[in-house]
């Protein structure tokens, strides 16, 4: 599963995307654990040390256009993106 990284996630990981060795569909917790393993630099600033959530205001959007719904799983074709949105300058 390919995960696109933007903003701080990309700066910390040093790559624009990572590929996770996951079969879909995958639950959010498993997704974050795999992401932390593939890009350890994302912990703790992007992925919480508990590995079960992203640190605000980082967020996960599917194909850059919608958030994960409660209980929803992630599939490869969802094109998950980790973004950092805070702005206002």
């Amino acid at each position, binding site marked *: 599963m390919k995960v*696109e990284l*933007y*903003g*701080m996630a*990309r*700066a910390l990981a040093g790559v624009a995307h990572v590929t996770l060795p996951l079969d879909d569909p995958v639950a959010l917790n498993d997704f974050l654990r795999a992401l932390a393993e593939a890009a350890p630099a994302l912990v*703790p*600033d*992007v992925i919480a040390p508990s590995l079960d959530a992203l*640190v*605000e*205001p980082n*967020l996960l*959007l599917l*194909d*850059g*256009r*919608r*958030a994960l719904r409660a209980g929803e799983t992630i599939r490869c074709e969802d094109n998950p*993106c980790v*973004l*950092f*949105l*805070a*702005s*206002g*300058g």
Partner: protein
Amino acid sequence: MRTEPRPHTAAGTYAGPRELLQVNLSTRTWLRASLTDEVFADALGGVGLAVRLIDERVRGPIDPLGAENPIVFAAGPFASTPVPAANKHALATISPLTGLLNEGLSSSHFSAVLRRCGLAALVITGVADEWTTLAIDGDQIRFEDASPLVGLSAREAAKSLRAAYGDRSLRVCAIGAAGERGVRFASVENDGRQAGRGGTGAVFGAKRLKAVALRGKGEVSIADPRATAALSAALRERALGPKTAKYRVLGTGANLRVLQRMGQLPTRNFTAAQFEGAENVTPERARESNGTYLELRAGCAGCPVQCEHLYVRKERDRRAAAASEYESVWAFGPNCGVDDLDAVLDAIARCDELGLDTISTGSAIAFAMECAQHDLVPRSAFGAELRFGNAAVLLPAIDAIAERRAGLGDLLADGVRAAARRIGRGAERFAMHCKGLELPGYEPRALPTYALGLATCTRGACHNRAATYDRDLRDPSAERDDAARALDAIAAEDRAIAWDSLVLCKFVRDCFDDFETEAAALWSAVSGLPLDAGGLRAAAQRTWERKRAINARLGWSLDDDTLPERLFAEPVAGGPHAGRRVDPEYLRALRAEYESLRASSAAFV
């Protein structure tokens, strides 16, 4: 609709500087007064205080470029205290661009010294006979000849004044050539920071006020120094954590890649929402260039974040380095279809030198490019061909606007709304503004709450006053009912007022667990006036009511709370949100919900 705010009374003694200095440039006179505890309890400071002072003085229609239009500086109540990210002040006037209230913010040393001069606020009216520097030197007020400064940039003017005073600690707020010539989106600069939007620089120019120079070394009292120190230390620590990492490491320019991916990046004057050349102009590219660009860092006095990232090619003079803030890069990059980072950085630097708001300037050029595409203005107006994507036209166009050069330069210097009216022949459909203020760099057709916020914002299309994009961007496809969106828009507006009245930098907004409670505690510790979360919300609401009351007196009506026609008529072309547009009936319903909730505003207090 209520048009007058509810009063508020104080239950304590305000600890900070409380002097109001009123200066009349026509008569070269001034008046000092002491603001009461009730004023601070009612309006807090910053934008809240500036809006209250405008409200007391603007009781009907006025000419924004006339003598009676007041310029109000109101210090942030945490300036010159240990509170981090808070050396800020508000700068309010009636905008020559919109004809409505304009309240901007600036920051750094000038804000701190304003309070060290004993001032809570400074109100300037009248018109000077000659170009003038208003010098506030401790207790002394002087009207100094500014004719040697005419034509200089704000930075050069400050340097010249410091040399003349022999004092490098002199703090100066000044305009550049664009303000002198009355460009209606001219900015005001101090310490390298700009109050950019709405044309306050043109109001300075109309008053022949080139600069305000401050020198003050007075103590700023704090009601509870121990509590203030503890709260400030906790905020400072959080402001150095992951919640502000983006600003510290990357700067706001990092939004460009994100918004491009999300299909939310307005391109070529909002004719598209993704830009094929976005990767070429993202400031991250300069950062990742392995030494091609030199990166410089800057920030406001007393701020741990130091958010500003400036870039210049390594072989060039570092004084040519340009700030790479998202809105500025967007305005000259994607919005003009330009994919040349050097050209974009040079355009930003030129605007800072001339004293121009980058958002409005880039939008004016993008508007002209589209007009040229439809043969409404000459393509050769600025020498280089006026067309989307032509980087070579940016600097000549900026210079022509700043000089108000006869023809298109002069036309664009009045903003896109006025320019479109004068061009006619359908040019209005290319003028991207709300109430005369040009749109910032987010795509409203894919962000419904943000679209509502832009329409209702008292300042016009300001993303920092109607900061509703945050909520939308977290889930752009979320289905939400009208009432929820209207509530979000109101909450975002009122929260922005609270931030801007305290005045805290919005870049530390995620550093609070419970902003209203914690910010109210900070206010109480610094000021000595009790405040809780509900009181802070009520103060923000009072200021919003004043803003709208001022605008109503200036001729605003509910019909003005709308969006550019393009956003209704033309769907997003391509990208994840292809086909989306703002349904006028939907916006009407959201506005009705918004008005209904505002009318029953006791629910928010």
